[in-house]
């Protein structure tokens, strides 16, 4: 007897639970979900405001810094410096940052580097500026990373940061003949482009055919010039990258807020429908109960 009663009660409970689980029909679960999506919308909206403010400052600073990048590039273009064929070692500097939620900024830089590494694994070493590029590249190409920097992205980049990085690169004793800085060049609020800037070593510069046009140069001058110009190019790339990242985060958070708003609308409609259904069900129960009497 007890056994029969024992099996009956769990069956009843199961039916009730099934009724509750049917398509989120409980008011409670919908209202919990609604509250959490509203919180998320508030967070994404505030992130958008913050990155809009940071973006406007970054764009202003970038305008003042653009000539540095163009100016530093000029020498390498006009002297037509190229990599030495007998030293195939290359150095790649990936400019990203520590923080995510900024669209495809970090992945596009990492993808560019990954395609390069796929072609030639042995002769390329990577310097990761920012935790994001390190996280993406570490899994397969961990052996190729020689330097990693963090605490990037919180504050706007300064020339001192760039010169510390250039110093660390030159002190790392990695003998390379050429290299590139991979960064996102800022085009407009809604678009950026992943580009590269050239980096050359003392040996490639001295071997350049057009170098003789330049007067009164000795190795010391060229070495100091290269060190400074590496710092200037890294600084320019960091500024461009920061601006692209802030604008990308702004649009990403804006889209997230819009999506959250749509979800809130749909959830509110479901909530109201469910509320009316519950009231109707209770009324039916009462009325059918009363009519049974």
């Amino acid at each position: 007897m007890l056994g029969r009663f024992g099996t009956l009660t769990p069956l009843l409970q199961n039916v009730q639970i099934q009724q509750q689980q049917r398509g989120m029909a409980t008011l409670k679960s919908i209202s919990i979900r609604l509250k959490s999506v509203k919180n998320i919308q508030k967070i994404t909206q505030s992130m958008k405001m913050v990155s809009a403010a940071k973006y406007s400052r970054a764009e202003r600073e970038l305008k003042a810094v653009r000539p540095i990048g163009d100016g530093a590039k000029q020498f390498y273009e006009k002297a037509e410096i190229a990599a030495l064929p007998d030293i195939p070692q290359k150095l790649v500097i990936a400019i990203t940052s520590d923080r995510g939620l900024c669209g495809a900024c970090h992945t596009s830089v990492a993808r560019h580097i990954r395609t390069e590494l796929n072609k030639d694994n042995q002769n390329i070493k990577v310097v990761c500026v920012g935790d994001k590029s390190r996280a993406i590249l570490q899994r397969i190409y961990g052996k190729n990373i020689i330097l990693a920097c963090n605490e990037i992205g919180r504050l706007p980049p300064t020339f001192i940061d760039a010169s510390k990085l250039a110093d660390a690169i030159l002190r790392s004793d990695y003998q390379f003949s050429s290299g590139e800085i991979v960064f996102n060049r800022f085009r407009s609020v809604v678009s950026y482009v992943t580009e590269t800037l050239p980096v050359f070593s003392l040996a490639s510069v001295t071997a350049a055919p057009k170098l003789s046009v330049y007067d009164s140069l000795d190795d010391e001058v060229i070495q100091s010039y290269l060190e400074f110009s590496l710092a200037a190019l890294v600084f320019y790339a960091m500024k461009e990258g920061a601006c692209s990242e802030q604008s990308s985060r702004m649009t990403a958070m804006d889209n997230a807020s819009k999506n959250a708003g749509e979800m809130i609308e749909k959830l509110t409609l479901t909530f109201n429908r469910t509320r009316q259904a519950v009231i109707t069900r209770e009324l039916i129960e009462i009325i059918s109960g009363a009519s049974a009497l």
Partner: protein
Amino acid sequence: MATSRVVSRLLPRRSFNTPPKRGYADKMRLTFCAGNQMFHNGDTVRQVDVPSFSGCFGILAEHVPTLAILRPGVVTVFEDDGSERKIFVSSGTVTVNADSTVQILAEEAHPIENLDSTTAKEMLSKAQSLFLSATTDEDKVEAQIGIEVGEALVEAL
């Protein structure tokens, strides 16, 4: 046809009236910027005086292409209209290219008007005392750099 006759009459008249102008050889375009701001971006100027480790020299258009490292000192820019501007730089590079474009990239640059001579003297004395108290080679070199900048600042003001 009438217009072409009018034009041909105008041209010789013009060459009589205008006196021959003194020409500086083909314009020199200067790009002068620092970590914090931009002073010139491809502007045409007459002459630029730069202090460098290989000596102070003035750059005019058609200067021989060269590279130089800036030492702490004053860069003087002589504009086309004759005015000159003095800007103090801490360090950087100068590139003169074959097509008369000049790029001066400075680490930090400030117009002389913005600098205060008493603060500069204080900076120099502080750097000198740091140099005396420095123990490692690196500290000594860093203090030496501070002294150079301080001396150049005091000299410029």
